[in-house]
């Protein structure tokens, strides 16, 4: 069964590259361009994993993460946070809010793919 991924980021070029990369890896991919859109997409599509950027308009990644973790329906959802702010406090904050993993931009595409696979495998 094809895994469903949701990518939430406000940078159009990053969306293009991630969408291309993950489709190539055989995932079913949808995208969201801000925090609110991300929340809508999660409840609509019920993805297996969410790639979540931190700095986004309307609702930032932390808020989205918090909202999702507060909701029983999405207990199975894996959240991988991406951030361009490499500060330790940001990493700690993301994990405290219930993110499953954390990657700093810019990342190696192979590592990202591997990380996603691990998270989904652990789930299965």
């Amino acid at each position, binding site marked *: 069964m094809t895994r469903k991924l949701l990518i939430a980021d*406000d*940078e*159009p*070029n*990053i969306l*293009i*590259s*991630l969408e*291309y*990369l993950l489709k*190539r890896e055989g995932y079913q991919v949808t995208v969201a*361009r*801000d925090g609110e859109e991300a929340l809508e997409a999660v409840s609509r599509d019920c993805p297996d994993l969410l790639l979540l950027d931190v*700095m986004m*308009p309307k609702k930032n990644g932390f808020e989205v993460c918090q909202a999702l973790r507060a909701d029983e329906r999405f207990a199975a959802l894996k959240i991988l946070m991406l951030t*361009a*702010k*490499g*500060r330790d406090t940001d990493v700690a904050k993301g994990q405290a809010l219930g993110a499953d993993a954390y990657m*700093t*931009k*810019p*990342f*190696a*595409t*192979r590592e990202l793919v591997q990380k996603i696979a691990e998270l989904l495998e652990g789930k299965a």
Partner: protein
Amino acid sequence: MLPASLVIAVSFAYLLALFAIAWWADHRAHMGRSVIGNAWVYALSMAVYCSAWTYFGSVGRAAGSGVWFLPIYLGPMLAMILAWVVVRKMIRIARAYRITSIADFIASRYGKSPSLAGLVTLITVVGIVPYMALQLKGIASAYAVMTSPLGAVTAHAGPWWTDSTLYFALALAGFTIVFGARHLDSTERHEGMVAAIAFESLVKLLAFVAVGLFVTYGLFNGLGDLFNRVRDHDGISRLLQFGQGQAFAYSQWAGLTLLAMLSVVFLPRQFQVMVVENVHESHLRRAVWVFPLYLLLINLFVLPIAVGGLLHFGAGGMNPEMFVLSLPLAQGWTMLALAAFVGGLSAATGMVIVEAIAVSTMICNDLVMPLLLRSSRYGARSATDLTGLLLGIRRLAIVGILLLGYLYYHLAGEAYALVSIGLISFAAVAQFAPALLGGMYWKGGTRRGAMAGLLAGFLCWAYTLMLPSLAKSGWLDDGFLRDGVLGVTWLRPEALLGLGALDNLTHSLFWSLLLNIGAYVGVSLWRQPTAAEASQALLFVDVERRTDATQPVFWQGRAQVPALRALAARFLGAERAARLFDAYAREQGRPSAAALVADARLVQFVETQLAGAIGSASARVMVASTVEEEALDLQDVMRILDEASQLRAYSHALEEKSQSLERATAELRQANEQLKSLDRLKDDFMSSVTHELRTPLTSIRAMAELIRDEPDMPAEQRQQFLGIVVGEAERLSRLVNQVLDMAKIEAGHAEWHTTTVDMRALLEQAAGSMAELMRERGIGLTLELPARVTALQADADRITQVVLNLLSNAAKYAPRDHGRVWLSLSERPDGVEVRVRDNGPGIPAEQRERVFEKFRQVSGDDHYRPGGTGLGLPISRQIVERYGGRLWLDPEPGGACFSFFLPFAATEAAETPT
């Protein structure tokens, strides 16, 4: 005519009411809720100045000589308005050294001299007796008018023990004792009395004004009618002229005014309410206008009542001094007459009570006590509790003063008008002025000088004013008035050295004050002051320059705490002494009174407390006999003063140092806060820069890896990715450039090539370079430029950078294909204004100021993310401000509208980083 029993009953009822008020105020004071801690009460209590003289005498004076009743009230008004600073200094001195009376004040200033205190007291007693007599005469006449048929001759005939005035004097003495000498608590303050006097002042004012209104509007048809009739009346109309047909006696007018100015402060009762009973110095500020206003109000109807009475009864028909009563009586308004009588009674009683209390305190503290303390029975070595004795002396003194007043009334009362009697007293207390005022402002005044001045002035007063008054009453042969003593005509009492041009009062005032001042200054200059005089002079004259802690203490020697405590207990009572010592110990930071050290300050504290009870001269004698003193000489005084001023200098320096430390701490704290917030800003800035750099890097790396890992990627796809890589790389280098640019401007390292700039040309050029981009996006650019504008000084490249930034922002946000951008230029009086407007989504109100923050990009509602760096506007603002201009966002609906203003005269203010 009213029944005597009614008048007497009403009188006693009124006195009882006064007493009830005094009792209530005392009670409240004990509960700690003082009713006299109020500027209004203080100001009203000063109106004890208005006695029977004012109430009855002024009308009589006005009926005889028109406006001549006025100087007696102009003086106090002037004194309060012009010389309140003097009064304030007196209050401060009296508070600091617990002065109990005017005799105490003068004696304390000149080395706490008992002899001087005694002399001042004697002068006061002799001088004040006529004034007491005046009150008795006022009440006696008023009583007679009330209880006799209208117009009857009221001379008393019969033996003295049938004279009701005597009994009235005794009754007043009784009331005075109840008011002022009831408690064993012999402090200098009398809260109940002050409250009663304030009330009494209201009563007499209301009663007098009521009669005034009755005469003016009841008897006549208002002031106009009254004075019209006066004008038509030959005998009376002269009263309304200043000179009354003769040359105006300016010297007499001035003399009377001066006399009243002095007496409003130096009369014992005025000194008592104004200085001794003052609760808080700030109350004086209200009294300064309320008291003169009171005087104005109570004098308003004097002339109307006087001329009204003359018109009504005809000249010589009635005693003008009693018009206040006889006018209502003649009209059958008996209740009004009774009210007026109560007002007059009130005025006289108030004066008698306060005066008798003040003078009895002086007699007790300054005349009797020093003599008693020398006797072996009551002297320093005796241990008798003297509080009871103190009270007994005061009570006797009160009775004595009133009996003396009665005696004078009996001897001289019939010959003189009320006002003339009062003026004799005024002239007597005026003799205190040189010694007292000189003592407050001149350190050179000595005890001998004060003594000589007072004696000279007093003797001169007695000879030129007192003796003639007795002679004119028929108790002395008046031959010496006409021919002088032993027939030497230039010794005539009312024309000394042939000075005959003045009236007797001005004449006496002139000679007595001349001799007084001459002797005071002359003798003071003749001999050096002693140590005690010099130290007191310093304490008095410089009272406003010292605080308690740095007050020099002019005392040296040895003392024992128990002895001092026993001394205090003798005069203040054991309980109060214990309370005082405990309070003092707390103030000194000692655990209990037992832990006190008997140093100079404690000795001084005890002496000051005693001074409040028995006067400073007696207190000095008592303390001196209780402790072992070493005599101070002038050098000691100077040394102690030196130490005190050093102490003051230290404490001042310490205070300044601690203030400057506080300031420095505050500055440091502020600087630290600033640094912290700068640090936070820098941290945020770094974090933002990192984010802005990593974002394009992420795209570039991802795209590059995609291409690398998929060699057979379709060419079209590869092209798109490579295009993105190039675009993001460009964005990166733009960002790096702008961050560096920003850093340079902020650090002040940017280079500025200031030249003459023609804004019109500059804008055209900038628009030209944007034209291609605009056309590509389908956006119309409209230029609104005037034909020419005045040139200004700026860096043309930098200004172009600003314009391009604004234009590219507008192009970014304006809708594609049907976007519009307007670029306009206008000249203002002091510079030019450039405006860039678009028809894009605009900027939400809450974000308007934030757009100028670094890395703040506004995306509006759609998902379009403009490819800016978030540094364009902050940099632009810095550039404009560098030339003294402003860059702002106009709150315009429909599209964003940015404007900037550049002044012609560049101030180059914004050199420093903002």
